C-alpha cells in the first residue's frame, strides 16, 4: 500500500495536477474575447494597467486597509506560511531532489524553528479564515461545498505533514503523501485554481481600465 501511494499514485496525482491545470488555463485563454475598438487614453495604458493591477491587488489599496485587514493578515499568514512549507520544508526539498531534480541541485532547507513558525502561521491563517467563512453572514451565503472541500483537504495535508515530520514514520509519511495526492487531484477541478487564475483576472481588469486612464 505504502509503495502504491509513494509510487504510481504519486505520478497519477502529479499528472492529473499538471494536465488538469494546463487544460483549464488553456481553455480559459483560448476562449473568445471581444476586441476593444475604443481609443485608449495612452498607448501603454493597457500594459501598465495590467502590471499595476497584478501588483496592487496583492495588498489593500484605495483606503480600504481597515475594511479588509482581517483577510489581509490571515490571508498572508496562510498563503506565505504554506508556500514556505511547500518549498522549503526539509523533507520537501529532499523529496524534490530525489524525485525530480537530483541531489546536485537544490536550495536551503528550513531549520526546525522556521518550520514551526511557518506551520503555525499557515495553520492559524487557515483556521481563522475558515472560522470567518463559517460565521460571517456575507461569506456564509457565498460558501459552497467546493470551499469546504478545498479547506479540509489543505488542512489535512498540512496536519499529516506536521505529524510526519514529528515522527519519521513510514505510515505517517504515506498518509501525508496520500492527502497531498488527494489535494493535487482535486485541485484542477476546484476553486483552488485561483492560485493561477488570479493572474488572468487581475491582468484583464488592469488592462481594460488602464487604457481608460485608471486601473482600479
Amino acid at each position, binding site marked *: 500500500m505504502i509503495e502504491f501511494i509513494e509510487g504510481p499514485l504519486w505520478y497519477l496525482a502529479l499528472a492529473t495536477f499538471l494536465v488538469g491545470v494546463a487544460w483549464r488555463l488553456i481553455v480559459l485563454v483560448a476562449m473568445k474575447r471581444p476586441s476593444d475598438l475604443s481609443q485608449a487614453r495612452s498607448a501603454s495604458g493597457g500594459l501598465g494597467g495590467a502590471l499595476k493591477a497584478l501588483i496592487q491587488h496583492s495588498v489593500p489599496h484605495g483606503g480600504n486597509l481597515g475594511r479588509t485587514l482581517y483577510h489581509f493578515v490571515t490571508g498572508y499568514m496562510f498563503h506565505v506560511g504554506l508556500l514556505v512549507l511547500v518549498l522549503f520544508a526539509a523533507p520537501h526539498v529532499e523529496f524534490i531532489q530525489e524525485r525530480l531534480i537530483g541531489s546536485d541541485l537544490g536550495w536551503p532547507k528550513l531549520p526546525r524553528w522556521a518550520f514551526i513558525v511557518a506551520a503555525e502561521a499557515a495553520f492559524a491563517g487557515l483556521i481563522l479564515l475558515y472560522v470567518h467563512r463559517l460565521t460571517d453572514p456575507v*461569506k456564509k451565503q*457565498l460558501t459552497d461545498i467546493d470551499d469546504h472541500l478545498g479547506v479540509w483537504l489543505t488542512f489535512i495535508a498540512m496536519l499529516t505533514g506536521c505529524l510526519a515530520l514529528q515522527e519519521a514514520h513510514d505510515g505517517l509519511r504515506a498518509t501525508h503523501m496520500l492527502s497531498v495526492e488527494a489535494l493535487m487531484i482535486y485541485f484542477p477541478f476546484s476553486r483552488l485554481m*485561483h492560485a493561477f487564475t*488570479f493572474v488572468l483576472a487581475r491582468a484583464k481588469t488592469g488592462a481594460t481600465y488602464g487604457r481608460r486612464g485608471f486601473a482600479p
Partner: protein
Amino acid sequence: MTVAPGTIAPDNRPVNVEAAVTKMEALLGGHIAAYLDACVHCGQCAQACHFHEATQDPRHTPALKLQPMTRVYRRSKSPFAGLKKALGLAPAITEAELRDWEPLIFDTCTMCARCTIVCPMAIDIASVVAATRQAFVAAGLGPPDLLQAADNARDKGSPLGVTPEVLADRVEWLADDNEVEIPLDKEKAEVLLTVSSIEMMKYPDSVVAMAKLLNAAGIDWTLSSKGYEATNFGVLSGKGDIAKTMVERIATAAEAVGARTVVVPECGHAYGVLRWSGANLLGRALPFEVVHITEYLADLKRQGRLKFKPYSEQAVTYHDPCQISRRGGATADARYLLDGFATDFREMTPTGNYNWCCGGGGGVQAMGRAADVRHEVFRIKMAQVEATGAPALVSACANCRLTMDESKAALKWDKELISIVELLADNLVPADKG
C-alpha cells in the same frame, strides 16, 4: 409600487429561462470566464459596495451578482462542464432563481466598480452585471420603468420624451430666455455637443451654461436633431439593439456635420458608454474623439480660452461620478477646473477614483422600486460631505444630481448641490475682460 430590495418583483410576466441561458452562453467569453474562475468567495467586495454598507444586508454582496453567469459557465462552458453536469454538480437555472436574482442584477448595482478595488482578484463585477442584464432582458425580466425608458429612447429619441421637435422648441426657448446662442443643426461644425434629457427636462440651466462656455471660447459647435441624446438606456437596461441605435444616431450626426469632437454633457454613464463602448457597440472605430464636458472645458482653460472669476462664496466639495472618474479615467479634469477657481475646495474621504457612488448610477435612478434603498445609500454621501464641513457639493453628472436631489428631498438634507458647468458659466470672465 416600491419593492423592498431583495424581494421578488410582483409581476406575472412570463419568463423565458432558455433565452436567458442562451444569451449568457453567447456573452460568456474568456474575459468573463476568467473572473468567474477567480472568485474565491472571500466576501471582501461587500465592504466596498454601498448597497451592502448602507443596509448591512448580506444579500447585497457583489459576488452574488456573479451567480447567474457562474451557473451557466459551470453547466455549459467551463472545462469539465459535461462531467459536472453528469454528476449533478451543475444544476440548470430555474425561473424562480432568475426572479430572485433580478433585484441584485438591476436594482442594487450601479455598476460603479468600487467592489473591483477591494477584490483581491480585481474582478470587474460591473461588466459582468452589464452582460447579465442583457440575459435577464432576453428572458423577459428587468424593471419595467427602466425598460420603458430604453424603449422611449428608441421610439422618441430620448428616455424622457425629448423628441427632435421638443428639442427644437426647448432650444429656442432657452436661447431666447437666456439671450444665448444655441446652434441647432448647423450644416458643418468642429464640435458636436450632445445633451442628456435629464438636463433638457429638469436642469436646462446646464444646457445654457454649456452654450455660454463654448460660445465664450469661440468654439464652432452645434447640436444636431439627428443625434442629440447622450444617455444610453439601451446599455443600462440590457437592450443591446437600443444601445447600438443610440450610438449610431450620435455617430451619424457627428459624421454629417464633420465634427472632429463629440462632447458629452454632464452625464457619467453617457460618457462611459460613448467614450469606452461606443466603438465596440458599432463594431468600428469612431472617426471623432469623445470627450466629457469637464475634459473639454479643462482643455479650454489650459489653452487660456476660458477664464473664471474665483468663486469664494462658500466652501465646496466635489462628487466624482463613477463613470467619469473611476471607470472613465477623467478624474483629474474636474480638479483642474476647480483648482484656483473654488477658493475653498475640500476633498471628501475617500475621493477621486475611490469615491462612493451616489446610489443612482447604472440606471438605478430610473427604477422607481429602488428609491428607498437609493436614499439609504445616499446617507454615505451625506456623511462624506458633512465631514468636509462644506455646505455645497459640486458634481458633473445630471444623473447623480437628480439622484442626490431626490434623496436630499426625501431625507430633508440641507446642503446645496451644484453643477460644475453652471458654476463655471456663472463665473465666466467675458473674453474682452480676460
